[in-house]
């Protein structure tokens, strides 16, 4: 498993690229790393690129744990930002939809994409 996090300065987005087998704990560790990055500012948009992950073993409890982490760290993460999830496999699309459903009442926008460029466009329509 590898998760790389790069932040486009000065105002984002954060691009998180994951590959290999990924579970809920890995996602939370990546979120912690992002929040601790000195270049991170609250409210930055994020693009999670899951196109080359294998997340078949993720469970509902793990998804809930990620949502709980985001909720608990809302002050540092900020509000009114956009999160784009890019997936290639149907199973990952299903997991992303599950995350979308559980995070539904948190104050940010989330969209799931299969095309990386569409996700980038959604995050920053003025650059396209």
């Amino acid at each position: 498993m590898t998760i790389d996090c790069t932040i486009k300065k000065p105002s984002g987005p954060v691009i998180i690229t994951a590959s290999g087998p990924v579970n809920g704990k890995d996602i939370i560790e990546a979120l912690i790393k992002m929040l601790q990055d000195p270049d991170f500012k609250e409210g930055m948009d994020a693009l999670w690129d899951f196109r080359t992950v294998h997340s078949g073993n993720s469970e509902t409890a793990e998804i809930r744990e990620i949502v709980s982490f985001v909720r608990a760290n809302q002050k540092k993460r900020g509000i009114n930002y956009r999160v784009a999830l890019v997936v290639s496999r149907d199973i990952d699309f299903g997991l992303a939809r599950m995350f979308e459903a559980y995070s539904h009442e948190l104050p940010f926008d989330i969209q799931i994409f299969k095309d990386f460029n569409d996700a980038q466009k959604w995050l920053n329509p003025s650059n396209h």
Partner: protein
Amino acid sequence: MKFLSLTMIITLACLTAYASENITFFSDDSLLITADSYIAHEDSAPFIILFHQAGFSRGEYKEIAPKLNALGFNALAIDQRSGKEVNGVINQTASRAVEKNLRDTYLDALPDLLASIRYVRDNMATGKVILWGSSYSAALVLKIGGDYPDLMDGIVAFSPGEYFERLGENPDFISVSARKIEVPVFISSASDEKDRWWPIYQVIPAQKSYFLPEMNGIHGSRALWSSTPEHLDYWNALKDFLNPFVIIQKPNPPGNLNMR
């Protein structure tokens, strides 16, 4: 006593089923806007236009609007183009924006707010009009309040903030407009969100008040949902702000008709 009267109003709102009506009208770029109207009084009654938070729809006000009716207000809850769904209500304006490949950032929703205000003033309300925003739309109603002072008589903002820097705006985008607000303003939020809106609140020159719950509270207008533990405290504070807008209609005294 205050608690009792609020409880009575909420009970009354539950017992009195004011039917909402689904309506549509156009934004400036011809995007069709969907809204739910909650009309319980004559068109001279004070009117509240309700705007939702990020990722939500007009469904954010499904529980709130009937209670506003019981307090003496008519209301209209809008679907802005930036949003998705809440309480089982899908944001139809946002769906149409996607179909038409229109931009749907929080700032792109600004024309929807302005179109809604104009629609209400032209077609639904002859009395006072109050703008009510939640989260990003709370920030936008404060901006409109400063930039278009003639369009409203009061502003309610749940969890506003300077949310638009990442969209290319200055860090004081909302504050610059808020400095020109001339109407009464009420701001509220979760207790840990005060830092986000306090600089805006400080520059508002008009009559203003705010409420923060003693415990956590919650982001946006959801604070008023019965699922929020502090919702009665939020309602009490809001009611204090809204009460002066409600004018009790007295019947004309005999003999005053046809006076010249």
